[in-house]
């Protein structure tokens, strides 16, 4: 059947029309092969534009459409829908990007218009060879996996469970709770962090729709949207979870009682080799840390492990092994959280060699009544109360030599801690805050900042160059730009607000999950404004600080959003994916299997035929349309729908024509 192509050239307001002569382009298109009608429109993505397209398809009996417009990333979806509503197979559409690749990058109108003509004729040439395609439907497996059990992971899990979906919540450490469990109070309301977090944690453990896998790690993910196959390693705790009542007698008896640095207390406190990270842990069960437990490091524990002797339920089992489970889900939400920059990198602040220079996270543990000092503010060097505490903001943040981004929570954390210190120590303690800018942007934040300004706290606008350790105290020189004077501060305890950074295994992990990282190393969202919880891998979403630094409320909002996005997929029985997958021309295929060796998704298998030959077969649910097999195929039997060799070659021939 002869091709009847319609060309729609979008002005895109001034975005395209200011640099490309759209009328000239329209006339040019009329003379191209197979084009029966050529029009321009101010905004083809608008309601008016859509209607005009649909009418034109009907009126001119078109069987192919070319838009000369913005990038397919913007409106491919929209235009396909318009074409479908106009009665055509939606894959008879070709988009000529004359905006991002033309009008937005050229200043010269003549050059831009000539280039637009080239791009357009290439698109029209391809459109002449487009075929109707059927989008394959994938059966969506029920259930979601949430990786990471901090507040974001918890929120996503609860939201999905509430919608009736089965959720597997996988957490690396022995308990859920994440960073929020380490906080004492949250800003700006000064809610007790544990009090608002633990009910959610309890809900997770008692919700029949949620299967909690703590002390577990994802080791492999296969499949694609609607159909993910995840391998999870459940690390051995060496404690029988069913029998353990969480009494804690084992930890008290442990030979290494209070000798091991406690990660939850950021190294300020101690624990035993058999431990529970904090009192409200979920599950409230003990875990043996095989990196420190003598039974593993030395092969024996004195004359016998004391924990076994002390345990009334007989739940310790050194013979436990890691186990692997395979879980099938339809969608995955990644909520793996963040790390803080180690300020040892900035040696001028004396963090590494001075005990009384600490981070805000460490100060949070001192403030916490469940912390290593029972909530008393004591200098780590000698256990005495400090008479002066100085906060240094932006340590490593907004810094081209460390982290160029703003940590978003530093200002508010410091203000909050200043408040709590004043509450605990009154005017006995002098509090200084050295800031570059105070970013109190959220609801209630500025009001909170005002309150702190009224509390007899010294604010210095400037950034100290160094913290000098004088042995009996610490000296900080700071130039205050509000008074243009240099202040020499003598202080007892220095608190640094460190930069917020991606987890140190973010790059390994992102490759495992097959999602990208942005330039700063955090996980990459599909669009920072409109799709902040999606990733470029459909079916995989991100929630919370793994995408970028956030406070608790933004993490919760982000997580609920991710759950909603994930539920959109789970609520369908079938999900339509794109038809740009590989297909085999069985007449040409010799069964050489070169394609199989290059496929990163294991989507191709060799199928034996009745005459004993073999041909390649593509599983359309696994194929991601990367095209590697097409390139590898020596006979040209493997072709990618929507990007066939003849279609691409036609485009190239059209581009190469003389202007």
């Amino acid at each position, binding site marked *: 059947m002869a091709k009847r192509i319609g060309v729609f050239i979008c002005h895109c307001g001034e975005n395209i029309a200011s640099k490309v002569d759209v009328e000239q382009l329209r006339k040019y298109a009329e003379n191209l092969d197979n084009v029966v009608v050529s029009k321009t429109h101010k905004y083809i993505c608008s309601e008016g534009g859509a209607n005009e397209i649909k009418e034109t398809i009907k009126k001119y009996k078109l069987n192919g459409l070319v838009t000369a417009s913005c990038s397919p990333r913007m409106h491919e979806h929209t235009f396909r829908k318009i074409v479908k509503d106009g009665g055509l197979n939606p894959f008879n559409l070709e988009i000529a990007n004359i905006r991002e690749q033309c009008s937005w990058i050229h200043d010269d109108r003549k050059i831009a218009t000539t280039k637009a003509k080239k791009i357009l004729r290439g698109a029209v040439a391809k459109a002449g060879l487009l075929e109707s395609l059927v989008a394959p439907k994938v059966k969506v497996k029920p259930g979601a996996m949430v990786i990471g059990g901090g507040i974001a992971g918890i929120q996503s899990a609860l939201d999905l469970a509430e919608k009736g979906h089965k959720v597997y919540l996988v957490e690396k450490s022995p308990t859920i709770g994440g960073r929020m469990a380490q906080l004492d109070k949250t800003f700006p309301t000064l809610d007790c962090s544990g009090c608002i977090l633990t009910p959610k944690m309890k809900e997770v453990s008692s919700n029949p729709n949620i299967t909690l896998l703590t002390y577990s790690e994802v080791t492999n993910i296969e499949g694609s949207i609607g159909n993910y196959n995840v391998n999870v390693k459940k690390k051995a705790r060496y404690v029988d979870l069913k029998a353990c009542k969480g009494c804690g007698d084992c930890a008290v008896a442990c030979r290494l009682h209070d000798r091991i640095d406690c990660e939850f207390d950021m190294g300020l406190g101690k624990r035993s080799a058999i431990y529970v990270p904090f009192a409200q842990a979920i599950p409230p069960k003990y875990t043996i840390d095989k990196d420190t437990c003598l039974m593993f490091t030395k092969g024996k524990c004195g004359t016998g492990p004391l924990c076994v002797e002390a345990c009334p339920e007989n739940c310790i089992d050194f013979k436990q092994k890691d186990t692997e489970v395979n879980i099938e889900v339809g969608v995955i939400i990644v909520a793996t959280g963040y790390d803080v920059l180690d300020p040892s990198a900035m040696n*001028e602040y004396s963090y590494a060699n001075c005990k009384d220079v600490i981070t805000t996270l460490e100060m949070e543990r001192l403030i916490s009544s469940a912390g290593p000092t029972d909530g008393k503010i004591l200098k780590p060097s000698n256990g005495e109360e400090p008479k002066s505490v100085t906060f240094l903001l*932006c340590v490593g943040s*907004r*810094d*081209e*030599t*460390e982290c160029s981004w703003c940590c978003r929570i530093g200002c508010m954390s410091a203000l909050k801690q200043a408040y709590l210190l004043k509450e605990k120590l009154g005017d006995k303690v002098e509090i200084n805050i050295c800031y*570059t800018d105070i970013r109190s942007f959220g609801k209630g934040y500025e009001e909170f900042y005002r309150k702190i300004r009224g509390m007899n706290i010294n604010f210095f606008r*400037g*950034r*100290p*160059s*160094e913290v000098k350790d004088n042995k009996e105290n610490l000296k900080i*020189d*700071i*130039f*205050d*730009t509000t008074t*243009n004077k*240099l202040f020499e501060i003598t202080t007892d305890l220095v608190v640094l607000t460190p930069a917020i950074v991606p987890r140190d295994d973010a790059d390994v992990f992102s490759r495992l999950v097959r999602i990208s990282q942005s330039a700063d190393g955090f996980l990459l969202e599909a669009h920072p404004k409109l799709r902040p919880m999606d990733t470029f891998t459909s079916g995989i979403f991100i929630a919370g600080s793994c995408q970028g630094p956030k406070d608790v409320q933004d993490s919760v909002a982000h997580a609920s959003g991710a759950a909603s996005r994930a539920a959109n997929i789970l609520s369908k029985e079938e999900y339509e994916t794109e038809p740009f997958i590989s297909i085999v021309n069985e007449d040409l295929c010799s069964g050489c299997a070169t394609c199989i060796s290059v496929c990163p998704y294991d989507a191709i298998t060799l199928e034996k035929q009745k005459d004993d030959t073999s041909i390649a077969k593509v599983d359309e649910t696994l194929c991601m349309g990367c095209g590697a097999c097409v390139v590898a195929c020596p006979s040209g039997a493997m072709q990618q729908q929507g990007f066939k060799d003849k279609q691409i070659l036609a485009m190239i021939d059209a581009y190469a024509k003389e202007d």
Partner: protein
Amino acid sequence: MSIVDLTSMAESQADVKTEINNRLEKLQNEFSEYCYQCAKCTSGCEAHKLLELEPHSIVALLKRGLIDEMVNSDLIWTCMSCFKCRERCPQKVAPVDIIFALKNMVVARGNQIPGNYSTMLQSVLSIGLLQDIKEVTTNDNKTIKRSDLDLPDISKPEDVAKFQMFLSKIAVEKV
């Protein structure tokens, strides 16, 4: 009088600012516009407590194009070139390099160079070294020159005329 007082009535010299910025980019790949006035440089400046040098103010004035007054001030000559500002700046702006550029500008305009700089320059021009062989006093009050010690001859430019040619050409070259 602080540098800020001196420049309160000044007019901007945009072309001079561009010249300085070009030079900074060429030599050290620095861009003064990125400064956000955190004053970390001034907080640690070795010359600040003693001589009131404010590196961050120098950058602020450069950003505003208020350059002439800085060039005419004594303050830029207080910099000790300790490079702490360059080392610690979170935006890779280096006041020390801006100050070098300003000092060079003073010299290029033919204004007076303070202190011993002219003597050192003269010496380099005539013998290729900052100073000639000196007599020193030992701690038992003897005077000793290099030739009294078991050391080889000093190394200095052999063909002085050729060296001076080289010097005079490169000294007038713009960065």
